[in-house]
């Protein structure tokens, strides 16, 4: 059975179709990388899969259950099996690093304080931040915050982890460490991962399959090998980083002039 199945997902913000009829299925235990240009709807897609936003139409099935029609109580149960790494880490600034990682455990389990503190230490060690429990998030660098966010995301041993740009703002070595971590989690623990990223190198390194998003649509999907040799012009432009292609750098001269001199009338 597919872990996640997205069917005909549509979302419109202020008359702009941000997600335009998305169909995507993600298998149990695979690492799916979602790529695409800035503003193409990657974060929005992720927000829908974790039901932070409700679609205009379409279905999102997680293990066969449609989360778009679930009530809050059942969503909580589903979300306990998720982990999510936010683009900025999204640590609670009023709590220490240790308390942040412990938060889901404190809220959802009846585990003893001592056991929780051991789990916290283990998770922090996994992300290379042993001994940082008592620091406040404001005392950390951006990359460290992200790693704490990752430790928190995996605190409850989730079956499904979402990563929004795990590599952004990290140095190449830390990126490689985080990539390795994602791969380890997926392979060793059988976690299903969905990774949004711009970084071509890590995408090809960690992905089982890659989906390329363009203007709210999935334009191509397949193994890294397949995507690398994709015939789709946009995918081609994207992975080669070419300034000109289907997504034009600048339209024709006349078009450019008319855009400059046009006034918004409404």
């Amino acid at each position: 059975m597919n872990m996640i199945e997205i069917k005909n997902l549509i979302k419109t913000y202020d008359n702009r179709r941000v997600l335009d009829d998305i169909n995507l299925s993600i298998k149990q235990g695979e690492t799916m990388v979602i790529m695409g240009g800035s503003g193409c709807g990657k974060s929005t897609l992720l927000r829908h899969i974790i039901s932070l936003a409700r679609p205009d139409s379409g279905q999102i099935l997680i293990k066969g259950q449609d989360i778009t029609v679930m009530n809050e109580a059942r969503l909580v149960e589903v979300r306990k099996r998720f982990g999510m790494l936010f683009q900025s880490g999204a640590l609670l600034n009023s709590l220490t690093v240790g308390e942040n990682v412990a938060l889901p455990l404190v809220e959802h389990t009846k585990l003893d304080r001592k056991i929780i503190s051991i789990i916290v230490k283990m998770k922090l060690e996994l992300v290379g931040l042993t001994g940082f429990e008592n620091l406040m998030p404001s005392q950390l660098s951006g990359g460290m915050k992200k790693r704490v966010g990752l430790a928190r995301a995996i605190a409850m041993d989730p079956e499904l982890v979402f990563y929004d740009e795990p590599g952004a703002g990290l140095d190449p070595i830390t990126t490689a460490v985080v990539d390795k971590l994602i791969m380890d989690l997926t392979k060793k623990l059988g976690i299903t991962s969905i990774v949004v990223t711009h970084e071509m190198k890590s995408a090809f390194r960690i992905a089982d399959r890659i989906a390329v998003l363009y203007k709210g649509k999935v334009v191509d999907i397949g193994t890294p090998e397949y995507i690398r040799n994709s015939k789709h012009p946009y995918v081609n432009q994207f992975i080669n980083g070419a300034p000109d292609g289907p997504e034009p750098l600048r339209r024709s001269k006349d078009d450019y002039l008319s855009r400059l001199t046009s006034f918004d009338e409404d």
Partner: protein
Amino acid sequence: MTWQNNSFGSAIKKLSEVVNSTLYHVTSFALLNWQVIKLMSIGLVKPGKIFKRRHIFEQMFLMGVQSIPIVAVTSLFLGMTLAMLTTYTLADFGAEVWVAGLVGVGFTRELGPLITAIVVAGRVGASISAELGTMTVSEEIDALDTMGINPVRYLVLPRFIALLIMMPCLAILSDYLGIIGGYLISAMKLDMSFAYYKDLTIEALKLKDVFTGLIKSVSFAVIISMIGCYQGLIVSGGAEGVGQGTTKSVVNSLIFVIAADSFFTALFTYVIV
């Protein structure tokens, strides 16, 4: 499309936007209140799951204990001002002994709860919406949601309960200091002894006056904490949005506090006599 270009059309369009956004805010504010009511009633059955004692105490300290100095100082000055004003007016009738009663009743029924609410709206209401607003823009609220932690339970409820408890306490403090302010003026201008002033005050006060004031202050606590939380949770658009939300929270709280004050005064003066 032409009708949209004339001013009548655009006025209609503006009006409908205002009506729409007002309706939107009224319903979503009602929804937030409904969630709090629901959680409170679940909490009556299983308190351990809903109420986190540590968070409530933390907020009680931040909101209540730390507001003591400013509430005390403003109440003392207001009490003195009220006493000066009344001695000045009552002197014409040779009725200065009424100062004690006036300050006592005025503070317990009206000014104590009101000045407390105004100070707290500025200090606590603003900080609630600034804090929750910052959490909203930095995705912390989203993070709570994805962890399956209800942000209303985790963030709104402790603030709501803490203020509900602390506000009447602060109002009582304000009552005392207002009365002391009145005494200071009476002692200086009218040579009243403390014992005499105290007797006059107690003679004039009814228990009902005190309760009236406390009921008011509870309602002010609800207004300030709920508006503060709501304005924080709906923030969008970065630091600028946080600033705007904070301003709105203080302005709206003040309007509703004063309106509620007037409502309760009418209620206790004309209806429940």
